[in-house]
């Protein structure tokens, strides 16, 4: 059915109610009506069925990925 995907905001439209999202070279428009936090250009959003449903905390994501790498490298797991 409709999958969810992470995309980067490259523009805003219609008084900032819509964001233009880029994912792997393709562009989609998504409504921001379901988000309750402010977003800015270059933020990454999880998008589903024409709506952004979550803002990805890029810094947090990078940190936890680095932590996973470290855990695996040092065989802490």
């Amino acid at each position, binding site marked *: *059915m*409709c*999958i*969810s995907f*992470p995309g*980067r905001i490259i523009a805003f439209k219609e008084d900032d109610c819509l964001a233009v999202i880029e*994912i*792997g070279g393709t562009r989609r428009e998504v*409504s921001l*009506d*379901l*988000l*309750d936090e402010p977003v800015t250009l270059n933020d*990454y959003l*999880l998008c*589903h*069925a*024409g*709506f952004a*449903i*979550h803002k*990805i*905390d890029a810094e*947090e*994501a990078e940190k*936890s*990925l680095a932590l*996973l*790498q470290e855990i*695996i*490298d040092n065989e802490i*797991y």
Partner: protein
Amino acid sequence: MKFIDEYRSPALVSGLLLRIKKKAALLSRTITIMEVCGSHTTAIGRFGIRRLLPENIRLVSGPGCPVCVTSTQDIDQALWLASRPDTLFTSYGDLLRVPGSHGNSLEKIRATGAQVKTVHSALEALTLAQTHPDQKVVFMGIGFETTSPTVAAAVLKAEKLNLNNFSIFCSHKLMPPVMRLLLDEQELALDGFLCPGHVSTIIGTKVYEFITDSGRAAAVTGFEPVDILEGIYLILEELTNGISKVRLQYQRGVNSQGNPKARELLHEVFEPATVNWRGLGQIPDSGLTLRKEFSAFDAGCHFVIPEIESQTNSSCRCGEVLRGLIEPAACKMFGSTCTPNNPFGPCMVSNEGSCAAAFRYPAH
């Protein structure tokens, strides 16, 4: 692609597999983990995850594909609605191929003149209602908590625009009630759930505490190989160290409190209802219906939809597949009379269906 490619790293995958093997060796029996999201089912098949796991970890697929769990009666009623002369019937593409009681599908009746259109979102259907004022545009809403808030937002927009030719034929379902049911299924004997990542984006992680309270493991998991393997690892950790809490693997996609705004819109427009699931029957408060205040946007108020005596083809075993009781290949029709090009049941129609995933990505 950012937030996708990093989670397919071969080094992380092999590192996680090694950890999983070590942990699994501590188990004295075979454990069963169920995923209840269609996107998980597809990803597990596509990345060949079953083949990589130690023998004593069994992954089974549950009722996570929205198209598959839609009852035959809902399909029959959709066919009835789509056949009305002044209706423009819209829904997601996969649903159009699901056969109803008598072998008809929305796709087939479209070929004979019914107005049926594929859309990617409820907003697209709403735009059609604006551009086709002389037609009654019906949007068939299916899907779980990830999708229903998007339909709620579309209904609120339609209200604002004073649209009177837009309505929802609601077949939305809720995930926790069906998980509760499966947890008690003796034959399944589940040890844990890979909880659906994007449903959790909306509902958060606390709702799954009934799983850990019952002594089983729960890990809210993302959709790339590293996510799924880490989710499985966290479940193993819970099972070997003792169940402590709902684990959140998919941190980049889920806040523990979910998305309160989306939930607010969802509850403003919809309320829980007892609905019929394919293969699982009626489950109390496991679906959604439009609240009275929004009945102007309920297809059931625009049309007198008949109660249809539906018949589900008895040789299709989707019901057992959806409950995780049999593997798709155990169905006699699998791969012979039933294939993705010529699907017999919904689990083969939808890309996210267990039968379609098993056909495209054979486990052996």
